């Protein structure tokens, strides 16, 4: 057994590092470092830089404009990008719809849509969840009824992440009401400026705006916008969900968060000493560091299996559960390290006022509350356990 990267992998890592050193704009990495909210322009700018290098669609095969990386290379890139405080690559077009179209889309759909994802012409969002259909996605009610060469859509989607920046949405809709609920679902592409669509912001627990609800009233969509076959959407949905779960361990983000937590706990004084020297606090940091070290190897073991034996299986659910909890624990410790100094509501004036504290401190509590989402979305950790119970334990 050899835990080290191969020479080629190390060379690749150095190349990625050098690229990030030279090309990641400092204003963007600063914003990411302190946990500030990125706007559309920030994310578009970073996508364009990566696209120019051919590194944007890290999971796509070469024929569609991807770099053709192995799972390990993809992992190295993600880890390095997180370490450098690069903005996260927005997943909806690149990590979700892209692979779906490559597998299920028509030639026309592939030719038209994939390049527009790469060059940033389109910003996609994901219309899966509904108020009554979360974990039980198959119970979704938004209807699409065929009328000549159009589908007419009525219903409501919710939790649409970054929908405020999007011009298109891919949706799961009900095209058949009898039979098993899974068998009457279709996957359809919708332009958000179609008449009858209304998007409303949802304010989150910490005060930010990243999700929306979307209402559809008699929205007419051309039949060509269907992906795959009518009523075969569930297969696509499941395929997409496994893609949603890749890089779900978020090892790179956690490594970064651990590094910053330690720096913070060295800077903060308690009882006249750096907090990191306090045995109780240090024990908490050590606990999560040990978990993270193990997680890194668990993650690599699963990547290795994917590389040598094809797609990873249900064990990715282990990554999701552990990975999200580790990140949440790190956020929690950072908030706790600050004590009452984490209590202020983060606002522009707080952020701009150096007298009131380090910028990264201002967002510590907001980050902790916002990241409670990690164990809820993309299939909650309870649902991941249900998956593991069936698929791995066969119980």
């Amino acid at each position, binding site marked *: 057994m050899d835990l080290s990267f191969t020479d080629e992998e190390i060379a690749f890592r150095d190349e990625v590092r050098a690229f990030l050193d030279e090309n990641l704009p400092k204003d963007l990495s600063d914003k990411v470092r302190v946990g500030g909210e990125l706007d559309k322009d920030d994310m578009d700018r970073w996508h364009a830089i990566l696209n120019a290098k051919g590194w944007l669609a890290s999971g796509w095969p070469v024929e569609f404009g991807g770099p053709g990386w192995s799972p390990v290379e993809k992992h190295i890139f993600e880890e390095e990008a997180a370490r450098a405080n690069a903005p996260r690559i927005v997943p909806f077009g690149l990590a979700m719809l892209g692979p779906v179209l490559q597998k299920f889309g028509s030639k026309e759909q592939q030719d038209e849509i994939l390049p527009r994802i790469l060059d940033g012409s389109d910003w996609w969002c994901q219309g899966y*969840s509904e108020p*009554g259909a*979360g*974990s*039980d996605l198959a*119970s979704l009610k938004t209807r699409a009824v065929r009328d000549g060469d159009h589908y007419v859509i009525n219903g409501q989607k*919710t*939790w649409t992440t970054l929908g405020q920046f999007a011009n298109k949405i891919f949706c799961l809709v009900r095209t058949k009401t009898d039979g098993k609920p899974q068998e009457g679902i279709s996957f359809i592409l919708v332009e958000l400026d179609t008449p009858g669509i209304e998007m409303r912001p*949802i*304010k*989150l*627990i*910490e*005060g930010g705006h990243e999700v929306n609800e979307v209402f559809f009233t008699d929205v007419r969509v051309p039949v060509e916008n269907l992906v795959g076959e009518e009523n075969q959407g569930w297969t696509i949905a499941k395929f997409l969900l496994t893609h949603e779960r890749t890089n779900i361990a978020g090892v790179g983000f956690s490594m970064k968060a651990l590094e910053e937590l330690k720096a913070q706990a060295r800077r*903060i*004084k*308690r*009882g*006249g000493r750096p907090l990191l020297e*306090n045995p*109780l*606090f240090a024990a*908490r940091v050590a606990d999560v560091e040990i978990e993270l070290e193990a997680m890194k190897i668990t993650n690599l073991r699963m990547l290795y299996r994917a590389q040598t034996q094809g797609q990873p299986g249900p064990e990715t659910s282990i990554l999701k559960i552990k990975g999200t909890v580790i990140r949440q624990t790190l956020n*929690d410790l950072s*908030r*706790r390290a*600050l*004590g*009452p*100094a*984490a*209590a*202020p*509501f*983060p*606002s522009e*004036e*707080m952020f701009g*006022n150096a*007298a*009131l*504290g380090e910028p990264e401190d201002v967002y510590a*509590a*907001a980050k*902790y*509350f*916002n990241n*409670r*989402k990690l*164990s*809820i*979305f993309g299939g*909650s*950790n*309870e649902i991941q*356990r*249900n998956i593991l119970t069936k698929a791995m334990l066969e119980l």
Partner: protein
Amino acid sequence: MDFSLTEDRRMLSDSLTRFLADKYAFDHRGKVAYDAPFHDPALWGEMAELGVLYALAPEKAGGFGGTGFDITTVFEALGRGLCPEPVLGTLMASKLLTAAGADQAGLLDGSRRYAVAIGELDAPYDLDNIATLAEDDKLSGRKSVVYGGNDADVFLVAARKGDALAVYEVTGTDAQVTGYGLIDGGGAAELFLDATPGTLLLDDAEAALTDALDAGRLALCAEAVGAMDATNEILLDYLRTRKQFGVAIGKFQALQHRAVDVVTEIEQARSITILAASRMGETDQSRAVSMAKTLTGRAARLVAEEAIQMHGGIAMTWEAAVSHFAKRLVMIDAQLGDVDFHLERVMAGYAA
């Protein structure tokens, strides 16, 4: 043995609970808790008229209570109502004024708002490392996250005077006060003192400050118990009504057992808070309070995180009451000493 409240306290609890439910309902809180002055000055006055503040001071100081159980009665109701009014500062100020034998009529009738400024950035919880200096009744230093300080008339400031700690009264208009809102609602301030004039209230104030801090800590435990009860009710209601896969999610055993753990932790927190309330004024007051703050801080975070998780996405929204209870429960631990600080205080007792 008798775990029931006295008649007087039960009446106080009922009237405060009803008052908060009527006048401080969730909608109203949403309107006042997150915008300056981060509380409702008019309702502050009405609440004072109910006698809530008098319950926090002993008879000899003009109040009609002031015991551990008076404190827990008031704060449990405030926690249950998720009330952002700065009552904590009033309680702690009342303790200091009582120790000084000073007049506190204005404090008890609600006409003068007090904030207590002890914590500093590098010493948010403890008295040993206070750096604010007092020389010739002039104070210099910075007090950090002074709860209620954004809208206080008077600050009671802990400062180092020679080798000992002293408490000074500083008028709000004399100091530089930067107020702001808190992530869990309510307001606080940074207090910048630069040869700011103060009036000496207490010399050799360490014991009085510890007593005020302990009272505040007990209050926070009780507030947490009240907020945990309310959170648990919201959670159980949701588990019974939210349906996925054709059944109420409360039918999933994966959630049932965790909901039971939540209730167990709340009961443990309630018990240790009762214990601490009963030890107020005894020699082991500080130790009992630290035990309570440790267990309650841990339970409060568990209840908050589990309530969010078992709600799913809806608890991530601003609109849902549970998210605001969760924020308060998590942030309560950061006030007047967190889990680790108080665990250390309990552990320190083993050395003796």
